[in-house]
């Protein structure tokens, strides 16, 4: 089979059968791309997971782009990335056509009032998991606490302040502390 078509179909299958996104997809990608198709190695997969953590965007898309590029250059990257997006695009587009009418049914509306509460709790739960995995150092903790308090005020009092600005400030603060601490000058020094 044509490699581009193969990439597209393999990633479309992964895109179609993974719910909740993120790390659920990694297991599927490992199964198809490493064991079954042998497109990439375990080491490469580990590397791309690390890269994915440091770059924006869903990890599944990062993996697809990387694997596609390795196998067939730019067209491969395009085919694999499209493959992983098309199923979720199709499903959501279909839902978007009738969701409004669906919500007019009283029982469905009640169900969604309950679901609304679950979403808040799931986001809190995700934050708790991220905090557990966070570096146990003063600076990250301080940044985390400050950003949380500022964003809480922004939400509660409807201040006009974008979370993107907050991220830029946090990045600059971290960089400044790093430079002022003298760590860059130290030879092969551990960052502090």
């Amino acid at each position, binding site marked *: 089979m044509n490699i581009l078509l193969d990439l597209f179909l393999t990633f479309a299958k992964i895109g179609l059968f993974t719910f909740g996104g993120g790390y659920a*997809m990694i297991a599927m990608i490992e199964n198809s791309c490493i064991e079954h198709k042998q497109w990439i190695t375990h080491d490469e997969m580990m590397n791309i997971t690390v890269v994915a953590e440091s770059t924006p*965007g*869903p990890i599944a898309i990062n993996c697809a782009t990387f694997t596609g590029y390795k196998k067939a250059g730019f067209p491969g990257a395009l085919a694999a990335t499209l493959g992983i997006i098309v199923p979720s695009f199709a499903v959501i587009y279909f839902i978007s056509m009738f969701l409004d009418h669906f919500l007019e049914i009283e029982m469905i509306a009640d169900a969604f009032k309950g679901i*609304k509460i679950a979403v808040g*709790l799931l986001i809190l739960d995700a*934050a708790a998991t991220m905090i557990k995995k966070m570096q146990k150092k003063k600076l990250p903790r301080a940044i985390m606490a400050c950003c949380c308090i500022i964003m809480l005020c922004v939400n509660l009092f409807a201040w006009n302040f974008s979370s993107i600005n907050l991220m830029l400030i946090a990045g600059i603060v971290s960089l400044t*502390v790093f*430079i002022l601490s003298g760590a860059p000058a130290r030879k092969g020094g551990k960052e502090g």
Partner: protein
Amino acid sequence: MIYLQLFLGFLKVGCFAFGGAYGAIPLIRDVVMSYGWLSGEMLTYMIAVSESTPGPIMVNLATYIGSNQAGFPGAVVATVAVVLPSFLIILLVTALLKTALKNKYVQAVLRGLKPCVIGIVLATGIYMVFANCMGSIFAVELNYNAIIISVILIAAMLGYKYFRKKKLSPILVIILSAAAGIFVYGI
């Protein structure tokens, strides 16, 4: 020009979507609210729908909002815009800048970004639970139905984790919350 707004709005989301699936939600809230594309309530419903359908949440939300605002072309524009930054960055990193991410200055910036994202996600979660149970801070009003459902869900999530030693899957939490909603609001 709605297509341009969708493209730029979701390009911003795509550029700053660090921290996995939930990291992107506050950003999308930000962009969607500032353009007035969806109500907060509708957006929350869609987060649940995205969580229960295949594919990354960020892509699902972009597709829905694009389609809601400008039909099929809107859905395509928003979806492409949200994916484009991560696509290009991975290409750049794998093809040209193999060591760029290991650069100590880049790492220093990232060390600041990550806790910031966690703080933002935490604030979003706290705010959503607060708004569900107590409404606006300017007019606090206890919503007893919402409080009952929250207690049921928290008990289920903590209980499952305690007895089964793993997390209750988000889809199960959503199904349970839907049932609780029908039961509590229906009677």
